[in-house]
């Protein structure tokens, strides 16, 4: 039965891609940070934080972006909004007012325009809110900056936003210190949603929260998505959370995207050895003994001095000679399933096991 539904959802994705272009399309995005040395700040190398990443996000869906710390997932999220300027690459966004635009080339005024529709929420609810601003100032800031509302209108809109995220509008005059982590995350969400955007980059929105509060915020994100037709890029490292909320998932390793597929397919039949190791490492709330884990040996490669060929080859269990010299390409091996591995077609990898 599951087999059937799964093919259906796969067909849907396929259909969607043919009928309408994705809301967001990233083409060979790169972000290199220079390493400077000495008095004259001589550039001696580059940290390749994001290195030739391409993917798309369809309207109304949630794309999960996972990977280890330092793999470039946050940098990717920030480059999409041009919060930091990418070194090269294209970020095509379907803006309701301006049409299809390449965000990475926009100048200040247009950028303000496009950021009405693409916004961001952050990981740390303590660091991302200014402690000297009231909720009215915080949530109202984007409205004022974008000239969307004035005077009393701002107040009305802020009240509406607070109600939407489950906070009482009477709290408008209070400061962030009066709120708990979960409530602060709601404030951040209200600020992001104030200009009525289409697309949200959620950068680890629940990883700083307690289990019971995490569930509340995840539910809120899903409710708002249905209500407002939002599209999410959900950056996180907790794979159970990502599986729960995403339609599709993309996996990054040392600045490269190694695999992208529907959640179901990626978790049950991964095609990249790194994804397989990730799946095996997920701590599962089930004390029944499991099969032996795949434990990766060695350390994550250094993005300033990555290994030759496939970046994953020094830790890969299935390494062959070609992996050490030639970099594999990011290819679509079945409809909607992209993978960057020389041996993707021949390997038979296992996904999350012990399924009930």
């Amino acid at each position, binding site marked *: 039965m*599951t087999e059937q*539904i*799964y093919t259906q*959802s796969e067909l849907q994705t396929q259909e969607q891609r043919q009928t309408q272009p994705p809301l967001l399309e990233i083409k060979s995005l790169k972000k290199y940070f220079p390493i400077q040395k000495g008095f004259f700040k001589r550039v001696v190398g580059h940290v390749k934080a994001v290195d030739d990443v391409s993917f798309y996000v369809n309207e109304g869906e949630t794309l999960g972006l996972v990977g*280890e*710390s330092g793999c470039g997932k946050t940098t990717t999220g920030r480059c999409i909004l041009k919060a930091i300027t990418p070194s090269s690459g294209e970020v095509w966004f379907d803006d309701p007012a301006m049409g299809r635009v390449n965000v990475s080339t926009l100048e200040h005024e247009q950028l303000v325009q496009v950021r009405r529709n693409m916004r961001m929420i952050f990981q740390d609810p303590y660091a991302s809110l200014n402690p000297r601003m009231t909720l009215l100032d915080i949530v109202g800031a984007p409205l004022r900056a974008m000239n969307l509302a004035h005077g009393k209108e701002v107040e009305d809109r802020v009240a509406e936003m607070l109600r939407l995220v489950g906070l009482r509008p009477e709290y408008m005059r209070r400061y962030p210190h009066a709120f*708990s982590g*979960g*409530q602060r995350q709601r404030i951040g969400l209200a600020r992001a949603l104030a200009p009525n955007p289409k697309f949200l980059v959620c950068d680890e929105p629940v990883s700083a929260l*307690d*289990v*019971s*509060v*995490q*569930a*509340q915020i*995840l*539910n809120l994100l*899903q*409710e708002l998505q249905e209500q407002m037709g939002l599209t999410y890029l959900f950056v996180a*490292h907790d*794979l*159970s*959370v990502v*599986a*729960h*909320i995403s*339609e599709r998932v993309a996996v990054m390793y040392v600045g490269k995207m190694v695999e992208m597929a*529907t*959640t*179901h397919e990626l*978790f*049950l039949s991964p095609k990249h050895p790194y994804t397989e*190791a*990730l799946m*095996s*490492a*997920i*701590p*599962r*709330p*089930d*004390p029944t003994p499991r099969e032996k*884990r795949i*434990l*990766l040996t060695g*350390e*994550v490669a250094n993005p300033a001095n990555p290994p030759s060929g496939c970046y994953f080859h020094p830790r890969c269990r299935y390494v062959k000679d070609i992996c050490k010299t030639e970099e594999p390409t990011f290819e679509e091996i079945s409809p909607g399933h992209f993978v960057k591995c020389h041996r993707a077609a021949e390997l038979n990898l296992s996904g*999350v096991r*012990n*399924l*009930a």
Partner: protein
Amino acid sequence: MSADHVLAEIKNLRTYFHLAEGVVRAVDGVDLTIKPGRTLGIVGESGCGKSITALSLMQLVPSPGKIEAGQINYYRTVHKTESSATADVVEITKLKPDSREMRAIRGNQISMVFQEPMAAMLPVRTVGAQIMEAITLHQQVSKAEARDRAIDILSRVKLPNADRIVDTYPFQLSGGMRQRAVIAMALSCNPNLLIADEPTTALDVTTEAQILQLMRDLQQEFDMAIMYITHNLGVIAEMADEVAVMYMGKVVEQTDIRSLFFKPLHPYTQALLRSIPQLDDVMARAGQKKRLETIKGMVPDPYSILPGCSFHPRCPQYMEGVCNQVTPEVVEVEPDHIVRCHLYTAPATRAPAAAHTAKDTTL
């Protein structure tokens, strides 16, 4: 339970923080038993008192916190000679934090691994120097011998090139390697009890899996007990033999790992287990979306003293007139499965206590 199967027992421990805003009852009557060679998991949300319980055990409660009441008995016997059991009981709560006797236990027989490996090490001294310090402090060995031991312990936590790592500084190591070095430091004196306070929370999943495997292997090798503190139920499922669930300074449920996951009794435990996304469930739904079950409200602020059961404002099975008035006592529902909830107390025990708890509520 006879004493020779106990390594440490905590009885009615109360650790309070007296602050200008009021008294925070971080640990409010906790009973726990740690058995040699076994892993006791402690789960709970932030602020439930799990870390303070561990710090009380080490006599490391930060000021202005104070152990107000209760007993912590530590059985100092070498657990390899099972014949001599009760010979050497130390009552940790009676020792001064900076006394010679306490310092001989701390870091030697009971040691601790913290969440943030960078904060647990001094950035200006080499990894080896810091491990050697612990060894020379507790054992009569020469410097050269201490260095050999440091290298040995570093290789036992599976750090490659231990003889090179011994001379590196903490910042030169990655997060996972640093946590291995911290574990090596904690194990350098062959402790009987290792307290691990969220040791993998700052690490990535693949590194986390490595560290968890390492800790399980080392537990066998060193035959030590582990007190494992975390908020992650997935990690607990893999590590613990027994689990205590804490909420607002109290243990609300304690049982073996299988009963906790398959037969949770306390409404808080049940709600916690339901509020985490389950992979099996996600996969079985095949793309269909679902909402998670949540616990309504949030953890009350730490200064508040709630009458009755502290979970009652959030509890789905709340009983008016009982849960909000009478503090529930511990009930042993099944052998070794205890719970603190009125759903399992006899109705008779609920009423007479009401009079004196009502007095408490006026505070």
